């Protein structure tokens, strides 16, 4: 019998790394209101990660806690996709990436919530959250893509940078409770109309899109991110406050 642990761990790691990247925007967003919105979205992602880590920890039955999973694993043990670990210090990149990720998360969580399984409860709650993230991202992609020449150009550049990372989310995984390959049409059905309305052209995919995150092969960006995120927990093992 296949175990859902690797798949759920990947889903959780996507959410945790996304939460950490969104945290960077706090105090840096274009307006105070967007600051709050991005913080809310980051906290939603953090909550999803916690819920999934708790499920994974119980399924593993190895005595690891959600904190152990978040703070005491090295980069090679993380299973997030490369899309989410790269820096996103440009607002257009932030919202384009959110569009791609949320379109995928909506489909994954909806599928998990529709069937019996250990992650059903977490997924049922998460699907409403990521539906809002998708809407938020779509609103911004529409306004920036179909905005001024400058905002269009920056959004086009952001799409060019993020788009090659979409295939990794949709790689087949026959052992997963939800095979991501089966979500391809649904995810594209959410993303493509937004891009079209935003007057953005879908960039061509490279012959060999970047991949490897699900197998633990990451960029140095994840090492930097984890070093910062984990430093307090590692310097003071077991500390509480």
């Amino acid at each position, binding site marked *: 019998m296949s175990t859902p642990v690797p798949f759920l761990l990947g889903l959780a790691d996507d959410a945790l790394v996304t939460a950490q990247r969104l945290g960077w925007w706090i105090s840096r967003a*274009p*307006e*105070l*209101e*967007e600051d*709050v*919105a991005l913080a*809310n979205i980051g906290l939603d992602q953090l909550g999803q990660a916690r819920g999934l880590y708790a499920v994974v920890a119980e399924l593993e039955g190895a005595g690891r806690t959600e904190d152990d999973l978040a703070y005491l694993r090295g980069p090679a043990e993380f299973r997030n996709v490369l899309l989410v670990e790269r820096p996103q210090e440009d607002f257009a990149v932030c919202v384009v990436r959110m569009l791609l990720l949320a379109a995928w998360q909506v489909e994954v969580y909806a599928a998990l919530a529709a069937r019996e399984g250990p992650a059903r409860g977490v997924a049922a709650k998460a699907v409403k959250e990521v539906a809002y993230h998708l*809407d*938020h991202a779509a*609103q911004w992609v529409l*306004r920036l893509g179909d905005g001024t020449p400058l905002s269009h150009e920056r959004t086009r550049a952001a799409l060019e940078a993020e788009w090659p990372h979409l295939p990794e989310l949709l790689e087949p995984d026959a052992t997963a409770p939800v095979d991501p390959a089966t979500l391809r049409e649904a995810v594209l059905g959410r993303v493509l109309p937004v891009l079209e309305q935003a007057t953005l052209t879908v960039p061509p995919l490279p012959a060999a899109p970047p991949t490897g995150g699900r197998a633990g092969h990451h960029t140095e960006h994840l090492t930097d991110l984890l070093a910062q995120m984990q430093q307090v927990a590692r310097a003071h093992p077991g500390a509480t406050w």
Partner: protein
Amino acid sequence: MSGGASGGGEWPLWEVFVRARRGMAHVHVGSLHAPDADLALRNARDVYTRRQEGVSLWVVPSAEVVASTPDVRGSFFEPAADKDYRHPTHYTVPDGVQHL
């Protein structure tokens, strides 16, 4: 119009009204900046209903609100000060009346 302290200051200001429960009126809770109505509604959701404060939201462009000004306070409000017959305080409630 905006002149807020929250950054760019180019987005217009919106007044936000939240209805806490079904059957209650929308109550003014504050204001925020947003580039247009759709995003104003979403910003209001994020800023003012994070802790389950509401079930319905209104946003109104602040520029569309017509407000009384302090210099008309005398003519607007003071005449009501000595007209206590407008308050239902001159009626004595007979003993035994319930549900009043």
